[in-house]
């Protein structure tokens, strides 16, 4: 090769990237492991001269900490609820989009719109739609000014209003709102990927099925889903990874309190826990939690890959 003599040139070109990666990627990996295994490590105290013992104390403390378990619970519930719902909905929409010609491009654009948004900004819109101005506390002169457009729709169809996100709302109602918002937010990416996959499936499979008079449901189950399985595996895995890192969408709806005013922190997630620990200068605890999060993501991804190895047709 002409350039093999000039390998110094390659390193010169790579220098900026390597320097920045060493400082902001490689060192943090090493340092996070170090801090996680120093009991009760705190950057502030280290500067003050405190010496920390090596051990797994941070990990033990984190998993015994009720707040962490609550965060883990909320994160897991959100993940388990939103990934299947958004994947199935996205699959149905993608299949429907793929089967039409008129308006296909237009509808495709519409379904992509939630992607081009700021999850905090639109979270505020969802909060407005679910918010009750006034109170439903059952007192004498209570004044409900507006129950929010979602409750208006429920009442229009003869239901009773629900306290979704206000003071006194239940955990289940809060989670429901979050699931709706996260699914709405997750659909565009999944539809885009699945539609791309559908469009690359050879039409002859469908023609053959039609000749045989195969029913629509059977075509979906026996042809579309198997041939689409690499893309389905991809959106499920990225969905789980994103789900375990859920944080800003909750801030969008509930604000920094991460819950209704009377139950702040109730909807906190794993990522929220890490940032809370960091804000209170407990880097050891934050690092341990971050490594646990990484471990969970790794395990879930490996399980998904293992399952898809058996199910995915490449």
């Amino acid at each position, binding site marked *: 090769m002409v*350039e*093999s003599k000039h*390998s110094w040139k*390659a*390193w010169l*070109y*790579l220098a*900026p*990237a390597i320097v*920045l*990666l060493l*400082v*902001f990627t490689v*060192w*943090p*990996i090493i*340092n*996070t492991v170090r801090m996680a295994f120093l009991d009760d490590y705190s950057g502030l105290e280290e500067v003050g001269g405190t010496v920390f013992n090596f051990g797994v104390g941070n990990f033990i403390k984190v998993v015994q900490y009720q707040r962490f378990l609550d965060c883990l619970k909320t994160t897991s519930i959100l993940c388990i609820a939103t990934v299947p719902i958004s994947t199935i909905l996205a699959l149905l*929409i993608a299949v*429907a989009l793929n089967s*039409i010609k008129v*308006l296909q491009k237009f*509808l495709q654009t*519409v*379904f*992509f719109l939630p992607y*081009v948004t*700021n999850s*905090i900004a*639109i979270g*505020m*819109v969802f909060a*407005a*739609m679910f*918010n009750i*101005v006034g109170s439903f506390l059952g007192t004498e002169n209570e004044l409900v000014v507006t129950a929010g*457009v979602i409750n*208006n729709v429920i009442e229009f169809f003869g239901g009773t209003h629900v306290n979704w996100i206000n*003071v006194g709302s239940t955990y289940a109602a809060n989670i429901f709102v979050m699931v709706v918002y996260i699914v709405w937010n997750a*659909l565009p990416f999944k539809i*885009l*990927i699945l539609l*791309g996959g559908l469009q690359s499936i050879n039409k002859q499979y469908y023609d053959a099925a039609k000749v045989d008079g195969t029913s629509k449901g059977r075509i979906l189950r026996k042809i579309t889903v198997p041939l689409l399985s690499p893309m389905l595996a991809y959106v499920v895995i*990225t969905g789980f990874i994103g789900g375990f890192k859920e944080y*800003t969408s909750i801030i*969008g709806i*509930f604000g920094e309190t991460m819950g*209704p005013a009377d139950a702040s922190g109730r909807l906190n997630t794993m*990522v929220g826990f*890490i*940032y809370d620990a*960091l804000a209170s200068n407990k*880097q050891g605890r*934050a*690092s341990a939690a*971050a*490594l646990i*999060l*990484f471990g969970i993501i*790794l395990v879930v991804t490996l399980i998904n890959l293992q399952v898809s190895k058996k199910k995915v047709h490449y």
Partner: protein
Amino acid sequence: MADNNIVVMHERQMNKVKTASKVGGVAGKVLTYLFLTIMALIILFPFYWMIISSLKTLDEYRMSVPTFWPRVVMFSNYAEAFTVGKLGRLFLNTVIVGLVSTLLSLVITVISAFAFARLEFKGKNILFAGLLATMMIPGELFTITNYGTVTSLGWKNTYTVLIVPFLVSVFYIYLLRQNFLQIPNELYLAAKVDGTSDIKYLWKVMIPLALPTLISITILKMTGAWNSYIWPRLVANDGVHSLITNGLRNAFTETTGDVNYPVQMAAVALVSAPLFIVFIFLRKYIMKGVSRSGIKG
């Protein structure tokens, strides 16, 4: 010839099948469009609600039976949102951070991708694999240490802290390297024989050929600046260097209870608008970039 015959036969058969299933097909088509329309309306409703709410008076917004079109159109809500949220400064900050970080990031990505795609050096493959492995690690893990690093560097509450830590994206280098690899190596060798410098070759041949990828990277990077929230909240919370999302969240802290929603919705609309405008013009690049990346800014 034989192939042709099969195709013709196949088509004839298909036509028969098509007429047979036409009756059922019409009902199916109607259902398909009905389903897609309902879903599209659900997807669009929050945007519609944001816009009409932002144009209502507070009294109209609070009516127990909602109106679906504002009676009095209050454009003044937008002016109020702009001043209450101090959006001007925030827009400026976000544009500065977005432009500078995109520009620097592009330069670093291009020369790194070039080195990985075109140059030979010891340890290239190991280095590249190592870089790709870091992509698996959640960003929160880096943040804990980076927060300490930028604090001790004295970078807190500067533009630098919002730009420098995120300049290198392994993913963008990977994306561009794949793109560069598709360009025949013979072009590079020919240029070498002619005595063309690397930089000139990059500028004249590789960059034009990889332009769609570079545009995708630019868009992802700019939307990243627009949507970033967690990092600026940690390290640039003096109010002077805040970015748009933080400003929005801080100026309108309450989301539940008794809130002046028309003004808040106007602020949300103002913050969302630039992204939509970019999307309208660059739809193709955005959708292509996203389908390859899966990264939400």
